[in-house]
């Protein structure tokens, strides 16, 4: 038997060795930036050095032919360096303004949309979905591809009131995080339990403790140790499914999509916000999810028409109020919009301030 190689526990590598030389030289010494056009950033260092960055969208799940093509483009047009943003956009840096247009032309020719800067709709944060996750209610890559096709015009322009960050999540755990718009799976029926498999597959106390509403208890079913769900308590969140796959939560019909708005991480102007439910019961409809896309585009239309300069989605709604939001979007307001989870009283209107 061959000797197994011990890992070199080298940790997070030093970025300097992979960094564009102008960035490296001026590290921590930048003066200002502007945006000559959508998709292009221009940074000026205290030293007077300048760098132009061209940002383009990718499919994130990339085949090595695509990655090599990006490397070819960087070698021919962008001085041999690439970086990626946290939203899977690719950035090429060049040290002279003259190199920007040929790079833009090449990216256009190769089908990479240039944009995602300033007040645009940038790339959707992307989870794994049916391609690789073990608990997904939907796909991620297909949802993102469909939405970005539909929102392409807003990616390549900077015509929104402020930047728009959209997220997707393939289950209610919300791996996509907070977004101006979040497109998330919402299960609507309790799990269907295969009692023959529970005892052999699941650590039952761990599953019981995982339930956020204490709806799961141990039970003997058909003479076998298993688990049962109090369906009156169950909120259909699917938290039991990862530790206990025989508690199947995903369903081709009853697994739906819900849309949330107004989340943001930044502390800019307003404090960070969590996104709020606006629409649910939307069919999980591959390959292009047209119903979800239509609602997203409708919300974006209302925001674009009505928000003031620099208002993020959540800030816009805070100003105009929820009655006006539901009026402008035409979305129905139901009993499911009223929170009853812990701390929910803080989401009620404790005032005589009404919009009528």
């Amino acid at each position: 038997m061959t000797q197994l190689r011990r890992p070199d526990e080298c940790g997070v590598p030093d970025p300097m060795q992979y960094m564009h030389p102008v960035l490296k030289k001026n590290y921590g010494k930048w003066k200002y930036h502007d945006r000559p056009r959508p998709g292009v950033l221009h940074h000026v260092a205290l030293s007077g050095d300048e760098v132009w960055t061209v940002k383009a969208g990718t499919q994130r799940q990339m085949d090595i032919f695509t990655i090599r093509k990006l490397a070819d483009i960087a070698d021919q047009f962008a001085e041999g360096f690439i970086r990626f943003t946290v939203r899977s956009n690719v950035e090429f840096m060049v040290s002279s303004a003259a190199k920007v247009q040929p790079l833009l032309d090449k990216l256009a020719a190769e089908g990479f949309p240039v944009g995602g800067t300033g007040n645009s709709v940038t790339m959707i944060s992307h989870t794994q979905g049916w391609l690789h996750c073990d608990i997904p209610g939907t796909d991620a890559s297909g949802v993102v591809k469909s939405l970005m096709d539909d929102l392409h015009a807003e990616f390549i322009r900077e015509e929104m009131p402020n930047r728009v960050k959209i997220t997707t999540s393939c289950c209610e755990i919300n791996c996509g995080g907070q977004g101006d718009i979040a497109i998330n799976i919402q299960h609507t029926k309790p799990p269907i339990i295969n009692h023959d498999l529970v005892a052999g597959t699941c650590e039952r106390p761990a599953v019981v403790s995982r339930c956020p509403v204490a709806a799961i208890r141990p039970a003997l079913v058909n003479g076998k140790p298993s688990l049962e769900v109090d369906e009156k308590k169950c909120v259909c969140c699917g938290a039991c499914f990862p530790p206990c796959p025989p508690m199947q939560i995903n369903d081709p019909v009853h697994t739906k999509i819900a849309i949330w708005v107004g989340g943001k991480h930044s502390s800019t102007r307003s404090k960070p916000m969590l996104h709020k439910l606006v629409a649910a019961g939307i069919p999980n409809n591959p390959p292009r999810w047209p119903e979800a896309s239509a609602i997203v585009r409708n919300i974006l239309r209302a925001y674009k028409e009505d928000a003031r300069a620099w208002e993020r989605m959540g800030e816009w709604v805070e100003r105009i109020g929820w009655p006006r939001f539901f009026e402008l979007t035409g979305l129905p307001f139901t009993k499911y919009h009223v929170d009853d989870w812990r701390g929910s009283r803080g989401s009620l209107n404790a005032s005589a301030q009404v919009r009528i």
Partner: protein
Amino acid sequence: MPRKMPETPLLDQLESGPWPSFVSGLKRLAQAEDKPYADYMKSLLGQLEHSYQTRKGYWKGGTVGVFGYGAGIIPRFSEVADKFPESSEFHTIRIMPAPGMHYTTELLRQMCDIWERHGSGLVAFHGQSGDIMFQGCTTEKVQPAWDEFNALGFDMGGAGAGVRTSVSCVGAARCEQSCYDEARAMRSVLNNFLDDIHRPSLPYKMKFKFAGCANDCANATQRADFAVIGTWKGDMQVDQAEVVNFVNKVGRKGMIDQVIRLCPTNALSLNDDDTLDVDNKSCVRCMHCLNVMTKALTPGTERGICILAGGKRTLKIGDLLGTVIVPFMKMESDEDYEALVDLCQRMLDFFAENALEHERLGEMIDRIGLVAFLEGLELDLDPNMVSHPRTNPYVRMDGWDEEVKKWQARKADAAE
């Protein structure tokens, strides 16, 4: 006999449209008949189409690893391997990139070559935690692929109940708003916890993220248990000549609508000569005016970080945003960076000892109270940590005089 391309009528509909298509990429791999992954990826396409047809996922976890580490491989075994046997094992290898996600083309090509030899040819730049996700590898090929990535100078990312791979914004490499060296902070912290990344034994996952300013381009506030966010002490820097230029460009109404009245604490006022009056004592370093007037306004010179703890996603008590546990910590000297690592170590030790099984940091703080957490970490209390003081009287307060003495002693220390 090579496998035939599967029929994929639903996935085929994702090849049209202006956005780059991952389906076209999967097909390129499946049709690279001279490559070892061609049949593997035909089979994978077949399973994905099956998911699209039936609206269900068909992967289950398992146990796959590399010699010496207890995490970092995401095992995936197919539940429909009878229909799609070649891709019955489709594991992911998580690799930590450099902070800021910088690459030379040479490095990207080396990574592609390794993945061409051992894997599926499919890579995600990057996963939600910040890893390069090399997606699609058989159990047998995991070790040789890892050996080559590791020899290239790259290490395995986190998974399971351990410290996870981290993310920073582009930061000091290309942003005038960067308030500290994000890459240095990230490497100092993460590389101190390599054992907790590679051999997870915490109550639950622990995520650090590093953003250079309050714009939080690293999405740290909600997505990290421990969010390090750049800020400054003292006055912001104002170039009044550039302020006047800005007002000339957008007009007084533009200046008032886009800058003055959007200040969340009304700390800005426009002078009669079109220069800017800044009430720095009221400024909360939110970044709005600096974002709009990039030439005129810059963070102050005494720079450092604000730390927010407890952000997380929905499971189990709902999404939480991080809250302030350190309002300001200078981040300039070697000692400052060492102090950050030391604080992270104390936080991780406290979490390891006090969190319940499968409890995130924010949930633990929610359960034990912020004050107990601060005392455990020996952090000083600060009014910046609350939106407002408590509103109900149901608390035992017979330690009041001692607490007042502590506060006064701290104030006296600070005044020296």
